[in-house]
């Protein structure tokens, strides 16, 4: 059976974001989960969202079935928390982090944590990211790949939108949103997900 695919959306987005990618993948027989993770305007802490992601995955695929995981933007950090802290790494074959602030983003630096705890988790040097980075072996055994846009203004600087482990690839698009919309990006991501 084809390994199920889990898609995790980011800040101020919904699973509809992945429509083009799913259509381009054209794998109707592949089990697919793209859960909606309501996050207010960014006030829900990312660990809480990762816990909800875990519930969705357990409910759909049980506790052991292997999955591939793709997270876009904030969704990549939520996915990483699930992998590193909630046991996801033990059942995940491949993790694609797409335009995700795995090292933080300058765009989040001025956000007030009391009001926007989730968005503030993506500040450079946030406690969450420091804790995740202190566990370099936590992703061992997972085939990790980070995709980034050099000119990204949401995850800035764009070239730091990469995991501390695994391969990374620059996608030649101009904006953050194009990472999930531009035909070149979709082609690149589809190829990686089909491999």
């Amino acid at each position: 059976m084809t390994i199920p695919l889990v898609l995790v959306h980011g800040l101020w987005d919904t699973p509809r974001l992945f429509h083009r990618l799913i259509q381009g993948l054209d794998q109707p027989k592949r089990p697919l989960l793209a859960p909606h993770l309501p996050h207010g305007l960014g006030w829900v802490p990312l660990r809480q969202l990762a816990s909800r992601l875990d519930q969705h995955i357990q409910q759909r695929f049980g506790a052991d079935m292997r999955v591939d995981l793709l997270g876009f933007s904030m969704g990549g950090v939520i996915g990483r928390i699930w992998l590193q802290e909630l046991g996801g790494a033990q059942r995940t074959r491949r993790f694609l982090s797409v335009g995700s602030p795995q090292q933080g983003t300058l765009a989040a630096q001025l956000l007030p944590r009391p009001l926007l705890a989730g968005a503030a988790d993506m500040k450079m040097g946030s406690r969450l990211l420091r804790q995740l980075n202190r566990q370099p072996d936590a992703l061992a055994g997972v085939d990790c790949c980070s995709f980034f846009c050099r000119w990204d203004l949401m995850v800035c600087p764009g070239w730091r939108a990469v995991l501390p482990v695994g391969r990374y690839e620059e996608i030649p698009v101009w904006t953050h949103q194009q990472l999930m919309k531009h035909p070149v990006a979709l082609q690149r991501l589809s190829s990686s997900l089909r491999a």
Partner: protein
Amino acid sequence: MDCIGVRELRLWAHVGVLDHERRDGQWFSVDFSVQLDLTAAAVADDLSRSLDYSVAIQALQALSHKVCCLTIEHFSEQMLDRLETLYGPMPMWLRLSKCAAPVPGFNGRVFVERSRHGGTSAL
């Protein structure tokens, strides 16, 4: 009568009576045909005397991106509207299938067949 048809166009769309079907999306498959006399195009090897099926495929893909409704009947109605907008009031037919209907213990397909202007199944 002659026809041009497309089979197994797969579309991801947010259509269904259950909330999660509209929220999460699911796969559909479409077969459609438009009936017309293809003799002139066949003899002259001239696309302009036939129909360009690629524009219909793209139009239905674009529709699937936007649509959010309860029934496959309504989804199919919008498909026929798109085809008619592209090609005019010609005999046309389509079958729209839901690839994995959320019915416990059921693994088959559910479909609707629709036609306009006297179109008939080409399959």
